[in-house]
């Protein structure tokens, strides 16, 4: 069964992350919170497309549902004040 940590590692391998947390324990539905400088100045669509790019064909196969929240480090520090 696909583990959240596997998805986390795959994203981290492709995308330099300030912070990343992938959760979900049913093997097909996952939630990802990803904080990266790469997202600076990008639309939400562009940000999410980068995450999908990192996951490649997994999105068509193993992963049925992935909820994504993307932040820049500044946005993330604002939220966690």
């Amino acid at each position, binding site marked *: 069964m696909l583990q959240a940590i596997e998805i986390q590692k795959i994203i981290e391998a492709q995308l330099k992350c300030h912070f990343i947390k992938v959760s979900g324990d049913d093997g097909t539905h996952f939630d990802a919170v990803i904080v990266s400088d790469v997202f600076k100045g990008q639309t*939400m*669509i562009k940000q*999410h*497309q980068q995450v*999908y790019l990192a996951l490649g064909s997994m*999105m*068509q196969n193993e992963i049925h*549902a*992935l*909820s*994504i*929240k993307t932040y820049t480090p500044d946005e993330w520090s604002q939220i966690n004040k």
Partner: protein
Amino acid sequence: MTTNARIKKLIDDNEVLLFMKGNPTFPQCGFSSLACQALGALDTSFETVDVLQDPEIREGIKVFSNWPTIPQLYIRGEFIGGADIIRELYESGELAKKISKE
């Protein structure tokens, strides 16, 4: 007519268009249902395409928008996003603005 042309026509012919699994009355997926609820809460008329009834569109739309999942929302020809983005735009009030062309 190619799948891409069919998709383009659907998007051009409908101001607010949601490609989804099922329909607003019987959504077949939680994310599709969430997208319908957001649009429904804005009291806006919108068209839907049930990709479960049309496998060519189901795959073609992912290539068309370079977005691997369903649902997908289009407003006046612009790809808005999937369920996550629809929810975030709804919560921030941006979705209402995009629809009413403010």
